[in-house]
């Protein structure tokens, strides 16, 4: 259900504002209302204004924001390493940290930039190394001749080789050598050997045909090919050592200083949050004035704490919530232990308004029933009960999973119950093994009774939903809406009786009086709900028919279980039969968990809750660490 919320005002001397906010922050029970939602006497408006930070607070805020920015910048330079906890009181070292941070940030920005540059150079050199390694074998075949020039290429596609050969042959009149080799990383590298006199033309031609030459850095120009190779390897090794040294220094610094900086950062963020919150507080000439919300059952606790801490200098009072501000009231869902896991299913819906209802108890009651009706197999139910119990113990640290398995456990118990009613235990296996018979009806053969049963459930659920809509309208104090909801509910019941009498499910004699009653009520319905009201009523009838899915999906489940047993029987071998039946039942079980869950939820979200729930509530977000 939706917990009762109190509107609370806290008033005290301005000098105590920060201490009061810290006290509320520590308790974690109070949400500040940033808008002025109280009745202010005419002429008094000018005396109440949003709290303005004084010079001291403003300079503190600027100092803390600057420090936080610097700490975050420093962290962006440092490597991510696991660090110890720091137990130094952060407030006592704030000034020291403010003094050291600039030096640290400057030193480690420099190292960070140097490391980045080295990493970039190493990456480029690695590319050259791959190329030079591949060419080393080719160069062995070439005699050293000063009049020759060498052009290196990285060939993206092997098909290009022929085209390159053709291009060069046109320029050099077949006076060239073109060698290719596959590099370590799988790319194809090529070496063109030509006379120096025509190398310019060849390079220009390659460039025009989007075949960029692999150029080595200028520092390599004076070196021979074997020297280039050795030089690249030496340089890579040197750079790797440098990077290792820098990383080591940064890691040592991070392990020593990051815990302290983290501690300070946390403290700075807390102080800043408090300073920012002061913008949501109001002030008069002498006092501060905080308006906000808190759960009513915690009011006494908070009041006692405020009174004890501030020796009566700060007053705290509970105010009446004015009707026009009901939409501002934050919503807290508070449910008994049984319903608590079902809040997981409500999370998918927007929050209800404070004046509306908490959907959790409704889902908690009806979801397992509908799930059980659809699955309706004692064998499957027992498997799921066992699975839920085991999984709840295995995942006990993950709250959401524990909640999910708690829901499955409750729903599976209902599946066992309805399984006994329908006489189903892994389909008809229960009947074949130990003569299990249905207590009320056998779903496989009773299509029409099951349709009627599902429709009855739908009708009951709809009537409950429509009635809740009537209660919600009364709670809101809207008489016209209440009359509309009431007449809609009555009309809905009459229409069901009319349909039932036409199908002779109830005495046919009722048809005429019910029809007359509907005709009398129709103008009243249109008067209170508008011309679209009869359409809404038809929608409710459609919603009711939607409950036939209870029967339809249940029927597919029971038929699949029945088929699994028949196919297993046809194998003629016990082991194969058990294996086949096991696999098919497993498939049916998986479907039997998802399908009923989704459809039961859908029946709640779409059909049931649309009749009375009003969404758009504000989440309760108290001040807390």
């Amino acid at each position, binding site marked *: 259900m939706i917990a009762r919320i109190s509107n609370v005002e806290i008033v005290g001397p301005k000098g105590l504002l920060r201490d009061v906010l810290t006290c509320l922050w520590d308790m974690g029970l109070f949400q500040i209302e940033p808008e002025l939602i109280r009745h202010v006497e005419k002429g008094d408006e000018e005396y109440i204004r949003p709290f303005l930070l004084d010079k001291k607070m403003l300079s503190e805020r600027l100092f803390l924001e600057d420090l936080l920015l610097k700490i975050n910048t420093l962290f962006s330079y440092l490597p991510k390493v696991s660090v110890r906890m720091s137990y130094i009181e952060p407030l006592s070292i704030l000034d020291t940290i403010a003094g050291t941070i600039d030096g640290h940030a400057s030193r480690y920005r420099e190292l960070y930039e140097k490391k980045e540059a080295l990493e970039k150079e190493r990456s480029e050199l690695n590319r050259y190394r791959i190329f030079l390694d591949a060419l080393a074998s080719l160069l062995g075949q070439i005699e050293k001749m000063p009049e020759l020039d060498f052009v290196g290429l990285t060939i993206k596609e092997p098909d290009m080789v022929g085209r390159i050969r053709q291009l060069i042959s046109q320029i050099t009149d077949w006076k060239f050598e073109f060698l290719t080799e596959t590099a370590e990383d799988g790319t194809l590298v090529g070496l063109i050997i030509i006379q120096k006199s025509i190398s310019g033309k060849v390079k220009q031609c390659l460039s025009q045909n989007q075949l960029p030459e692999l150029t080595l850095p200028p520092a390599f120009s004076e070196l021979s090919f074997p020297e280039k190779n050795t030089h690249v390897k030496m340089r890579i090794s040197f750079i790797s050592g440098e990077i290792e040294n820098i990383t080591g220094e940064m890691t040592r610094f991070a392990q020593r200083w990051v815990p302290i900086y983290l501690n300070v950062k946390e403290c700075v963020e807390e102080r800043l949050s408090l300073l920012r919150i002061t913008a949501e507080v109001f002030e008069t000439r002498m006092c501060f004035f905080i308006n906000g919300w808190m759960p009513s059952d915690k009011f006494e606790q908070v009041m006692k704490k405020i009174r004890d801490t501030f020796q009566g200098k700060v007053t705290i009072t509970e105010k009446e919530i004015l009707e026009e501000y009901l939409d501002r009231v934050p919503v807290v869902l508070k449910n008994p232990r049984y319903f608590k896991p079902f809040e997981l299913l409500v*999370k*998918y819906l927007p929050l209800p308004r404070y004046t509306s209802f908490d959907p959790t108890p409704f889902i908690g009651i009806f979801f397992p029933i509908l799930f059980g009706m659809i699955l309706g197999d004692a064998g499957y139910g027992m498997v799921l009960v066992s699975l839920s119990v085991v999984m709840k113990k295995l995942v006990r640290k993950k709250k959401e999973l524990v909640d999910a398995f708690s829901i499955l456990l409750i729903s599976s118990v209902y599946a066992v119950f309805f399984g006994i009613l329908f006489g189903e235990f892994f389909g008809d296996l229960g009947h074949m093994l130990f003569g299990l018979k249905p207590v009320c009806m056998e779903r496989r053969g009773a*299509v*029409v009774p099951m*349709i009627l049963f599902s429709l009855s459930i739908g009708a009951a659920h709809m009537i409950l939903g429509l009635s809740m809509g009537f209660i919600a309208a009364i709670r809101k104090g809207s008489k016209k809406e209440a009359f509309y909801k009431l007449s809609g509910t009555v009309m809905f019941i009459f229409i069901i009786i009319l349909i039932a009498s036409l199908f002779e499910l109830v005495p046919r004699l009722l048809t005429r009086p019910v029809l007359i009653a509907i005709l009398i009520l129709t103008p009243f319905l249109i008067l209170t709900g508008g011309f679209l009201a009869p359409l809404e009523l038809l929608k409710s009838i*459609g919603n009711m*028919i*939607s409950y*036939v*899915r209870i029967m*339809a999906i249940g029927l597919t489940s029971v038929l699949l279980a029945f088929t699994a047993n028949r196919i297993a029987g046809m194998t003629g071998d016990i082991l194969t039969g058990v294996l086949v039946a096991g696999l098919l039942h497993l498939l049916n079980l998986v479907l039997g968990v998802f399908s009923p869950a*989704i*459809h039961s*939820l*859908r029946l709640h*979200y*779409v059909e049931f809750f649309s009749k009375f729930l009003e969404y758009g509530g504000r989440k309760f977000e108290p001040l807390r660490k």
Partner: protein
Amino acid sequence: MEKVLVSFAAALAIGLTALATAWAQSRIGAAGAGTLAEKPELSGAIVILIAIPETMVILGFVIATMILLMLK
């Protein structure tokens, strides 16, 4: 012949609604997948949205059952 026509009518009632549901679900599914890429927290709502058009096939099923039972 009459029995064939009745059965055909029932098959049409459920077959066409099943096709309509499948088409609607395919569109919602595609849009839902796109939404999930940007807002994974809406997964629950999308599952429900995909289940919504199934009302059509349920209604088709009811009509088919009524045809078979009433015109038998």
